[in-house]
C-alpha cells in the first residue's frame, strides 16, 4: 500500500504492540499541540487541551494494546499452522517424486496396520468388548464339572440347579436355559428351521433387558413361567414377520403348534449362549423333577446367574462349592465328581479361544514389527541420500529437531495414508475372517471394524511412525566426525549407517525366525493330524436334520413311522446310493450314558460312562464305518423285538479285552428296571470329536427301538448333491408341510469346519511366516545393494589388482549372511524360550522339535543368500576402470 506523497516508509520500527500504541498516541498529541500552538495557544495550555480533547490516554492505549495482542496471537497460530502445512506439502511433493518407494511404503504400512487392526478387532469382539447387559461384571455362567469325563464346563441337571437356586445367598438370581429346535412358519408361509432357547422366566430380568414391543417373561415367584408364550428376537420379528407392530397378542406357528407372542426383544440384544437365537420359549424344565431316577442324571441345562451386589466372584464360587459338596454328600450315586463351576459370563465359552487369539495377536504384532523395521531401513536409505541437504541445513542453523522432524514427518505421512489403507484392509480381512471362521470362533457377530478399531489404527500408525522413523531420524542429525557440512566421503556416517542397518536386518531375521518356527511346528501338527484316519468316509455324503415337533409326533410310533417313511422315499430319489439315519453325526457333541455289564462286578465309584448314538443299519454303510464282528441292525430288530445294540471297537477292547463281546449283555442307564441289551456286532472306531481326539468307547442303539424326534439323515449321492437335496426337500414337504429340512451340509464340510486345534493358528502363522521371510529378503537385498554401492570403488581397486569376481561374490554374500545369521540365532533362541506357549496347539510334535528348527535355519539362510545374490553379482561385475574414473 503506497503511503501518501512525501511520507517515507519506516520498516525498522518496532512491531511490539505496546510501543506501537504509545508511539502512535504520542504522535497524535504532539501534532495536536503543534497545531494549537500555531493557533496561538500557550504551550502549557496547549498540552492540557490536547489531552482533554483526546480523552483518557492510558485507558485508550490499553484498549488498543488488547486488540493488537489478540490479533497477533491469532496470527502466530495461523503462521505456525501454515508453516507445518508448508512442510507437510513439501514432504508430500518429495514423496511424489519417488512413486515406487512411496507406493511400496504405503502398501507395507497398510498391510501391517490392516492385518494388526483386523486381528485386534477379532480379539476385541470375541474377548474384550463388554457384553451388552446391565451389571455385566456381576453376571456369571455356571457350569457343572464332570470329573469322570475330565470336563470342566459341563451342563447341569434340573435337580442340582433348583438346589443351588434355593440355597444360594451370594447370587441374587439364577436362570436356566437350553437350546431347542424352532421351526417357525413366517408370514409368507415359509417353514424356516431356526434355533430357540427355552429359558427361565428370570433370564431377561437378570440380563437387564427391556422389550422392544410387548413384554418379556416375568418371574412372579420361584414357580416358573410355563405355557405356550414366546418372545421373538428382533431379527426374527423383522425378517419373518415383516416387523409387524401388531404381532404382540397374536399366535405364530412354531414346531407345528400355535404359540402366542408376548413380546419382541430389542435389536441390540444378544443371546447369553452362543449362536443366533430366533425365539425364546417358556420352559418346562421341572417335568424331569417328577422322575427321581433322572432328575440328577440328565445333564442338559445351561445356567446364568447374577452375583448379589458387593459379592465377589471368589465368594460366590466358594459358596457354590460348599453347596455342591453338600449335594454330593446327600446324593453320592449321582453327584460324585460333579461340582458347580461359575465363570464370568464375559469369559464363558471362550476359554479355548482366548489363547489362540492371543497367539495370533502376538504373531501379527511380530509381522507389524518386521514391516516397521523394513520401512526404517528404507527411510534410512532415503535419509542417507539427503544427507548433503541435511548437513547444509544444519550448517545454516536448522536445529536437530527440525531435521529429525522432517524424517519423522515423512514416515508419519506414509503411516497415515497407510493407516487409511489399513482400515480398508482390516474391514476386508474381518469380513473374510468372519465367514471363514464362522464355525470355529464364538461371538463373531460382535466383531466389527468400529470406532474402537479406528483408535487402534491411530495408535498403530503412531507406533509405526516412531519405530520406523526414529533410528533414521537420529542418524540423520548425528554430527559428522568433522562437524562440518563436507560430506563427500562421510566415513563416520558410513560406519554408523552400516551398523544400524545390520541391526535392522538382524531384527528382521530374528522375528522371521520366530514366526517361521511357529508356522513350522503348527504345520507339522497339521500333517500329523491329516495322517490320522477318521474311521469313516465323508466323501459324497450329504446330511441334514428333520426335527419332528412333539406337538404332532407325540409318541415313538409316530416318530419311528415318519423316520422310516422318509428313509424309504429318500432311497428312491435318483442319485441316492444309500440313505441312513442317526441320532447324531460325527463332530457333534457326544451324549453319554453309564453302563453295567452283565456278569462283571460293579466297579468302585461311579459306573463307567460311554458315548451313545442311535442309528439304522444303513447309516454305517453310508458313512463307510466297517463292521468288524457280528452283524449290523436289520429288519429283524423290531420295536417290540429283543433289545440289541452295536458297540465300537474301543468299547469292546476296554470292557471285554480280547474276548468277543457278541452275545454279551449290558444295561445302559441307572435303573434296574432298564432292559438288558444284547451286543450283536462290533463296528470300527470313528474320530467323531475331530481328528485330534482319539475314539472313545461308544454304543449304538437301533433307531427302530430307540427312535429320536430329531433324526439326522445321511445320503450317499452319485450326482449333483444340490439336486438331490432339492428332491429330498420336496419329499419332506409332501410328508408334512410343517416339517423343515434343517442344516443341510456335506459331511466333508462338517469334518473340515470342525475345530481342528491348530488349523486357524497354523494358517495364520504360515501366512505371516512367508510374508516375514519375503520382507526379510527385501531388507537384505536393500542392505547389500547399499553396501555394494558404498564400496564400489574399493571393489574396483581389488578387482584391478587381481581379485576374481568369484571372490568378490563370496565376500559380498558373506556380508549378507552375517547379520542374518546373528538374527537367526537370536530368533531361534527366542522361539525355544517361548515354545511353551504353543504346546497346547501342537499334535504329536514337540515344541522343541529339532527338525523344524533346522529347516527354519536353512530357509532363512537361503533367503538371505538369495536376497544378496543380485547385488553381489553386480559387485562381481564392476568395471574397475569405469568405477575408478568417477
Amino acid at each position, binding site marked *: 500500500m503506497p*503511503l501518501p506523497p512525501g511520507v517515507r516508509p*519506516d520498516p525498522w520500527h518496532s512491531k511490539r504492540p505496546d510501543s506501537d500504541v504509545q508511539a502512535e498516541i504520542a504522535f497524535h498529541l504532539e501534532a495536536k499541540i503543534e497545531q494549537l500552538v500555531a493557533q496561538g495557544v500557550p504551550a502549557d495550555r496547549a498540552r492540557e487541551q490536547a489531552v482533554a480533547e483526546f*480523552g483518557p490516554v492510558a485507558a485508550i492505549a490499553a484498549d488498543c494494546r488488547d486488540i493488537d495482542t489478540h490479533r497477533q496471537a491469532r496470527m502466530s497460530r495461523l503462521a505456525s499452522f501454515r508453516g507445518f502445512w508448508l512442510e507437510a506439502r513439501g514432504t508430500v511433493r518429495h514423496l511424489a517424486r519417488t512413486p515406487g518407494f512411496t507406493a511400496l511404503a504405503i502398501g507395507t504400512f497398510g498391510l501391517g496396520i490392516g492385518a494388526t487392526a483386523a486381528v485386534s478387532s477379532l480379539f476385541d469382539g470375541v474377548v474384550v468388548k463388554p457384553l451388552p447387559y446391565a451389571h455385566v461384571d456381576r453376571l456369571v455362567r455356571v457350569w457343572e464339572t464332570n470329573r469322570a469325563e475330565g470336563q470342566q464346563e459341563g451342563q447341569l441337571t434340573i435337580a442340582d440347579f433348583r438346589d443351588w437356586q434355593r440355597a444360594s445367598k451370594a447370587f441374587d438370581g439364577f436362570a436356566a436355559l437350553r437350546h431347542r429346535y424352532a421351526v417357525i412358519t413366517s408370514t409368507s408361509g415359509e417353514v424356516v428351521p431356526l434355533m430357540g432357547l427355552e429359558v427361565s422366566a428370570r433370564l431377561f430380568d437378570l440380563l437387564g433387558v427391556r422389550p422392544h414391543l410387548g413384554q418379556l417373561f416375568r418371574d412372579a415367584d420361584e414357580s416358573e413361567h410355563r405355557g405356550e408364550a414366546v418372545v421373538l428376537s428382533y431379527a426374527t420379528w423383522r425378517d419373518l414377520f415383516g416387523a409387524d407392530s401388531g404381532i404382540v397378542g397374536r399366535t405364530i406357528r412354531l414346531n407345528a403348534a400355535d404359540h402366542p407372542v408376548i413380546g419382541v426383544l430389542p435389536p441390540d440384544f444378544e443371546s447369553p449362549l452362543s449362536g443366533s437365537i430366533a425365539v425364546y420359549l417358556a420352559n418346562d424344565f421341572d417335568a424331569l423333577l417328577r422322575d427321581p431316577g433322572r432328575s440328577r442324571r440328565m445333564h442338559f441345562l445351561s445356567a446364568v446367574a447374577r452375583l448379589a451386589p458387593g459379592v465377589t466372584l471368589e465368594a460366590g464360587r466358594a459358596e457354590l462349592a460348599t453347596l455342591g459338596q453338600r449335594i454330593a454328600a446327600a446324593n453320592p450315586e449321582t453327584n460324585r465328581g460333579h461340582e458347580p463351576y461359575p465363570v464370568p459370563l464375559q469369559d464363558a465359552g471362550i476359554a479355548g479361544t482366548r489363547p489362540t487369539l492371543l497367539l495370533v495377536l502376538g504373531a501379527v504384532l511380530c509381522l507389524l514389527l518386521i514391516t516397521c523395521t523394513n520401512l526404517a531401513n528404507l527411510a534410512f536409505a532415503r535419509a542417507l541420500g539427503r544427507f548433503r541437504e541435511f548437513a547444509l541445513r544444519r550448517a545454516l542453523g536448522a536445529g536437530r529437531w527440525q531435521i529429525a522432524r522432517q524424517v519423522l514427518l515423512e514416515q508419519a505421512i506414509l503411516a497415515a495414508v497407510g493407516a487409511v489403507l489399513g482400515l480398508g484392509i482390516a474391514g476386508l480381512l474381518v469380513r473374510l475372517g468372519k465367514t471363514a471362521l464362522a464355525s470355529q470362533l464364538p461371538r463373531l457377530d460382535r466383531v466389527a471394524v468400529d470406532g474402537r478399531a479406528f483408535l487402534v489404527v491411530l495408535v498403530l500408525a503412531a507406533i509405526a511412525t516412531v519405530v520406523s522413523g526414529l533410528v533414521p531420524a537420529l542418524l540423520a542429525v548425528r554430527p559428522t566426525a568433522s562437524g562440518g557440512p563436507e560430506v563427500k566421503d562421510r566415513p563416520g556416517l558410513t560406519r554408523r549407517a552400516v551398523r544400524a542397518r545390520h541391526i535392522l536386518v538382524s531384527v528382521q531375521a530374528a522375528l522371521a525366525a520366530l514366526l517361521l518356527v511357529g508356522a513350522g511346528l503348527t504345520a507339522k501338527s497339521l500333517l500329523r493330524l491329516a495322517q490320522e484316519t477318521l474311521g469313516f468316509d465323508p466323501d459324497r455324503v450329504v446330511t441334514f436334520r428333520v426335527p419332528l415337533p412333539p406337538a404332532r409326533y407325540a409318541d415313538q410310533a409316530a416318530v419311528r413311522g415318519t423316520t422310516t417313511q422318509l428313509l424309504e422315499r429318500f432311497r428312491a430319489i435318483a442319485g441316492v446310493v444309500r440313505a441312513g439315519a442317526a441320532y447324531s453325526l460325527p463332530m457333534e457333541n457326544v451324549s453319554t450314558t453309564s453302563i453295567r455289564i452283565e456278569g462283571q462286578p460293579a466297579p468302585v465309584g461311579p459306573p463307567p460312562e460311554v458315548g451313545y448314538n442311535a442309528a439304522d443299519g444303513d447309516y454305517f454303510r453310508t458313512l463307510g464305518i466297517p463292521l468288524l464282528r457280528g452283524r449290523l441292525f436289520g429288519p429283524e430288530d423290531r420295536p417290540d423285538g429283543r433289545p440289541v445294540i452295536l458297540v465300537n471297537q474301543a468299547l469292546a477292547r476296554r470292557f471285554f479285552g480280547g474276548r468277543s463281546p457278541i452275545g454279551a449283555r449290558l444295561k445302559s442307564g441307572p435303573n434296574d428296571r432298564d432292559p438288558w441289551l444284547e451286543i450283536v456286532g462290533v463296528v470300527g472306531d470313528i474320530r467323531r470329536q475331530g481328528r485330534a481326539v482319539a475314539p472313545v468307547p461308544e454304543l449304538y442303539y437301533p433307531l427302530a427301538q430307540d427312535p429320536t424326534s430329531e433324526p439326522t439323515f445321511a445320503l450317499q449321492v452319485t450326482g449333483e448333491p444340490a439336486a438331490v437335496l432339492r428332491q429330498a426337500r420336496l419329499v419332506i414337504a409332501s410328508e408334512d408341510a410343517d416339517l423343515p429340512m434343517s442344516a443341510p451340509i456335506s459331511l466333508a464340510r462338517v469334518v473340515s469346519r470342525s475345530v481342528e486345534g491348530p488349523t486357524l493358528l497354523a494358517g495364520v502363522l504360515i501366512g505371516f511366516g512367508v510374508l516375514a521371510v519375503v520382507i526379510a529378503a527385501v531388507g537384505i537385498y536393500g542392505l547389500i545393494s547399499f553396501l555394494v554401492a558404498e564400496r564400489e570403488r574399493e571393489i574396483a581397486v581389488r578387482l584391478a589388482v587381481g581379485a576374481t569376481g568369484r571372490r568378490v561374490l563370496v565376500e559380498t554374500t558373506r556380508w549378507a549372511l552375517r547379520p542374518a545369521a546373528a538374527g537367526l540365532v537370536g530368533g531361534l533362541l527366542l522361539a525355544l524360550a517361548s515354545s511353551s506357549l504353543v504346546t497346547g496347539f501342537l499334535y504329536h510334535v514337540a515344541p522343541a522339535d529339532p527338525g523344524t528348527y533346522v529347516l527354519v535355519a536353512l530357509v532363512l539362510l537361503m533367503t538371505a543368500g538369495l536376497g544378496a545374490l543380485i547385488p553381489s553379482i553386480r559387485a562381481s561385475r564392476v568395471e574397475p576402470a569405469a568405477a575408478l574414473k568417477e
Partner: protein
Amino acid sequence: MPARDLDLVRGTVDLLVLKTLAVGPLHGYAIAGLIRDRSDGELLVQEGALYPALHRLEAKGLVEAEWGVTPSGRRARYYSLTRAGRSELRAESATWRRYVEAVAKVLEPSGSRS
C-alpha cells in the same frame, strides 16, 4: 445485522473511519481532523475513541497499517483500506442510508405520506 444495531455508536465511528480512508492512506490525527471538520465537530467528541476503532478494524482485516515518516520527520502510523474494507464500506453505507431514510420517514410529520 442485529449486533451492529445494538452498538450504534461504535458502528457509526467504524463507518466514518472507513469513509474517511476511502480517499487514501491517513494517520489517526488526520482522520480525526477530517471527521471533525466535515461534521462541524458534531460527531467526534473525543479524538482518542478513534484509536480502538482503528485497531479493531485492523484486527478484522478491513484496514491495514504501516509506519511512515512524515515530511516533518515524525513517525506516524498510516492506515489504508483493504479490499475487504472497501466492500464493507459499500455495504455499510447502503445500510446506513436505508436506516436514515426509515427513521426520517417515521419522524416526518404525519400527512405528508405520498
